[in-house]
């Protein structure tokens, strides 16, 4: 049994890539190959000009490709936030003045300066995960791999972490590889890779991939509700574009239709006939 087979993948500098797939699809295994936590039995993984097999380059690769994992509690090493952020650069033997500077900078990037002397167990899940990102940033990586880093967070924490990843990608030019099983996180990516049974089955921009609803369904993957809504509307109204990704896009499109046909005049009619008032009473169906 091979966890991965026939994977051929190049990630460009500055890309925001989302890798999607079920548990056991090989997506985390792939991510762990990126910074030599795992080695391929056949074939090779190259980070920049370094082969991950080259033991002398292990640390170079790991500092270039920073990884954040699923459970924040199992990656925070120190009992004080700022000391944990310093852990990576400490391992690299960075001189102390530089160390202090990097810790300040990283905490600022994830907006956690106010918590620098706190104990990690006093923070929320999202805050802890931001500390983990800061800990990776302190090594000044060029690539940030988020290995299911949002899976255990509540929606608020998830949004915090994603916002930071996107900002780092946009403003600092950090390449982001996000492994996830939340389809919705793929919407803002440059590129979406779908994995199944150790192989890459789809690779392309999210807009194109979300069009392939039939194939995604066979892979038991959910299409985000917005895309599904657009597709459903497209099926009923061929003029309505079916490849929309965001709430904003749908709203804009519907408004365009509305403006075109002067919907305001017919509004009364809609209100009276077509919309049932919400069922506010309880236990009517039992």
């Amino acid at each position, binding site marked *: 049994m091979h966890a991965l087979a026939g994977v051929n993948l190049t990630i460009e500098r500055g890309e925001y890539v989302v890798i999607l797939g079920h548990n056991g699809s090989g997506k985390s295994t792939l991510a*762990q190959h990126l*910074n030599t*936590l795992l080695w391929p039995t056949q074939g090779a993984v190259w980070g920049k000009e370094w082969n991950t097999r080259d033991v002398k380059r292990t*640390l170079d690769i*790991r*500092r270039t490709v*920073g*990884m954040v*994992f*699923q*459970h924040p*509690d*199992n*990656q*925070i*090493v*120190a*009992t*004080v936030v*700022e*000391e944990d952020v*310093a*852990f*990576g*650069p*400490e*391992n*690299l*033997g*960075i*001189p*102390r003045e530089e*160390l*202090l500077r990097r*810790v300040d900078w990283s905490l600022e990037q994830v907006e956690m300066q106010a918590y620098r002397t706190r*104990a*990690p*167990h006093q923070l929320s899940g999202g805050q802890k995960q931001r500390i983990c990102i800061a*800990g*990776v940033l302190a*090594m000044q990586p060029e690539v940030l791999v988020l290995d299911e880093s949002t899976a255990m967070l509540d929606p608020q924490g998830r949004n915090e972490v994603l916002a930071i990843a996107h900002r780092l990608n946009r403003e600092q030019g950090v390449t982001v590889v996000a492994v996830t099983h939340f389809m919705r996180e793929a919407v803002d990516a440059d590129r979406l890779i779908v994995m199944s049974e150790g192989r890459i089955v789809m690779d392309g921009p999210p807009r194109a991939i979300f069009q392939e609803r039939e194939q995604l369904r066979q892979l038991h993957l959910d299409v985000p509700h917005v895309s599904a809504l657009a597709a459903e509307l497209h099926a009923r109204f061929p003029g309505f574009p079916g490849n929309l990704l965001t709430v904003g896009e749908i709203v804009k499109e519907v408004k365009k239709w509305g403006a075109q046909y002067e919907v305001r005049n017919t509004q009364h009619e809609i209100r009276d006939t077509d919309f049932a008032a919400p069922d506010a009473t309880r236990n009517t169906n039992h």
Partner: protein
Amino acid sequence: MSFELSRNIIIGQYIPGNTFVHRLDPRAKILVTLFLLFGISFTRSLIVSFVYLATMLVIVWSARVPLGFVLRPFVRGLPLILFFLGFSVLWLGWQEPAGIVFFQWGWIRITSNALLMAVLSLTRLISLLLLISLPTLTTPITQLTYGMESLLTPLGYVGLPVHDIAMIATISLRFVPILAEEMERVIKAQASRGGEIGALSWREPMQIGKAMLPLVVPLFVNAFRRAEEMAVAMEARCYVSGAGRTRFVQLHAHLIDYVVVVGMLCYVIAVWYGADLAFNAVLARFA
């Protein structure tokens, strides 16, 4: 039965303060503690042990730590200690009838030597109690681990994995609140499955092991799962055991710290050799 476990587990019971003892460098505190520990543990002279007791009382007083608070565990343990010491007095008196015999009834014999031994043990226990509680009362536990790491550094040159030991100390402190919370969750979960952990009877002692399994096995299994993940995460952040690391935290020793360490070392040596001599000299003068 309801479950209200402490959510904020504090290891060590640091009482913030700003006394001379509080401000001392953690390394100085550890060294002084070790000197005193050595002195108190290995003296067989009653006079010396009284001198140490007095010394400890002075230090506790100067750290503004309430004496009653520190001594409470001792008071609670007193019945058992007295029970043990009572036996030891009878045993010694029976074994070697040396010294003055105060009381004799059959084989029960109370001698001055045995009593002196008991008093010595008691003084030593009180001194040790004061000594052991002081560092944790006056220093945050993390500071103590930094101090320990820094002090052990020279031993790194003879092959002791100092950084690894410091890492172990830090990570175990990190895991305590996590595992405590997990323990709480496991207890509650088993209770909702009908496991009533208050329902043990002394008539069925063999049930104790079985009653512990539902709580202890998950604790270990989860802890090990976390450990495996943390090991991977540490390596991803370039941790290599034994490699040259720099340290974010740095301790700064002042002149006063050196003075205290050297001073206390001299004091312990002086007490060791001098207390009995001085006492005998004073005794001779009054005699």
